[in-house]
């Protein structure tokens, strides 16, 4: 029984010379490198996986000693809990619903986030930075991802810690049990501000809003096209336009949040059908 056959699949033999040869299209990533340094999955990888699984189980077991799955009172259509907070991963969405109309914040924007994420690999033409952590070689891509991620997490933090009764803004030091008076300044669509400032008619005010909205997208697309020509050349027209649309929309979300929080502006673009 002890005479068991133990052999490697490719035994190294000092009398022979070996070469690994493969034909590839494109420039080969593996040039002048040693044959790959591989190990058996059993037991090397499997052990890591089992250890991870055990750690996760232990972590969960420890966690549920301190925190239990919540259960509120029986469903009751006539009373909404105050404040009604979604689970943390939807709080970003709930917070965005404060700044935009539901058709945008609830449907179109999540759709755009999903599609935008899916398109990322097709829009990122930078071939560098595969297989290792790097910031310097792909600054712009990392910036984009981090910016979207930051919006998501900042809105989650706002929803968790800065929103209280009646979904009003509460600072950590204000009394969270007292109903605040609603802000005296109501939210105003941008065109009414123009009407007030420049004494123009409402239609002209709306036109200003439309011009600002369209101008933001138009200039935001055209200026980088001229200033960063190599980037535009590398991407090509359609890829660039798609990217620019998603990029400007993302920046627009941040801008709108700032406009709303600082200047109480409800809408920028006002049309009979949609308001943004």
């Amino acid at each position, binding site marked *: 029984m002890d005479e068991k056959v133990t052999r490697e*699949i490719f035994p190294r033999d000092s009398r022979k010379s070996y070469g690994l040869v493969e034909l590839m299209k494109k420039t080969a990533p593996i040039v002048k490198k040693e044959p790959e340094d591989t190990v058996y999955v059993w037991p090397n990888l499997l052990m890591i*996986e089992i250890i991870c699984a055990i750690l996760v189980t232990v972590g969960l077991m420890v966690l549920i000693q301190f925190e239990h*799955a919540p259960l509120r*009172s029986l*469903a009751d259509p006539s009373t909404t*809990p105050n404040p009604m907070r979604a689970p943390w991963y939807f709080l970003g969405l709930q917070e965005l619903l404060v700044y935009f109309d*539901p*058709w945008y914040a609830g449907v179109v924007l999540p759709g755009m986030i999903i599609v935008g*994420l899916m398109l990322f690999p097709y829009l990122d033409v930078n071939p560098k930075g*595969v297989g290792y952590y790097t910031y310097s070689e792909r600054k712009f891509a990392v910036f984009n991802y981090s910016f979207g991620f930051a919006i998501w997490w900042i809105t989650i933090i706002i929803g968790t810690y800065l929103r209280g009764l009646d979904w009003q803004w509460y600072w950590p030091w204000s009394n969270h049990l007292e109903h605040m008076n609603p802000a005296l300044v109501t939210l105003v669509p941008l065109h009414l501000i123009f009407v007030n400032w420049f004494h123009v008619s409402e239609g002209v005010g709306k036109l200003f809003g439309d011009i600002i909205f369209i101008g933001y997208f138009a200039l935001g697309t055209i200026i980088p096209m001229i200033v960063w020509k190599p980037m535009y050349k590398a991407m090509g027209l359609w890829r660039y336009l798609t990217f620019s649309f998603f990029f400007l929309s993302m920046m627009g979300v941040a801008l709108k949040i700032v406009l709303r929080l600082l200047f109480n502006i409800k809408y920028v673009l006002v049309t009979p059908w949609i308001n943004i």
Partner: protein
Amino acid sequence: MLQKIKNEIVESQIFKSVFRHGYPDNDLDRAYAIFSSVFLHIHPVKVRRSALRMRYTFCLGGITLFLFIILAVTGIWLMFYYTPYTGLAYRNIKDLQFVIFGGNLMRDLHRFAAHGMVLFVWLHMTRVFLTGAYKAPREFNWVVGVVLLVNTLVLSWTGYLLPWDQLAYWAVTVGAKMASYTPLIGQNGPWGPQLGFLPTNDIMFMLLGGTVVGQNALIRFYVLHCVVLPLVVTVFLAVHFWRIRKDGFSGPL
């Protein structure tokens, strides 16, 4: 003595008929152990040593998968006591919480594994992003990953109607109402009413099976949460892993 028992087992006809190889203490059997097992053969027989570096992957994808397995198992346990009926659902959860042995454990595990899965899907995605692992030829697998992310979120959303408590009711009311704002096909969406969509024929009605969150909505969400979405996730997971094998691991050479 132990060695002898082990040998008896490993060399027996039953063991051989199941595993078709000896105990994996030599390279040949280690290879067999992986590629002759339906469960293990999502792995290659050998991996690059660098692919095992924890500081590259942090095992985030693996942890996500493991949490999904925990969710499936605890979910099945919970199903033994749960009735998707508005008059009973809440009481069933109370029973699980206070009466049934281990009920609370299963519920807590299910809930926190769900939180964990959302968190780890995000972390895994961030890791894949930061290492550029989505670039050619792995673009499509990134897309599959995004589909899995969306499915994870929808799974948790459908899951929280089931206890039929206040959080359940209002989260789903708000979520379904959001669907009614879908442009073109929602009663409240831009151009929805103009195209003839009413509370009784739009996408929100289709989702809830009624005009308000009620019995039809509960049973719909139950079926989605327990059957349809887990199935979809499993299928996409299979594609996800298959593509990892086909496209190769992205790690350092």
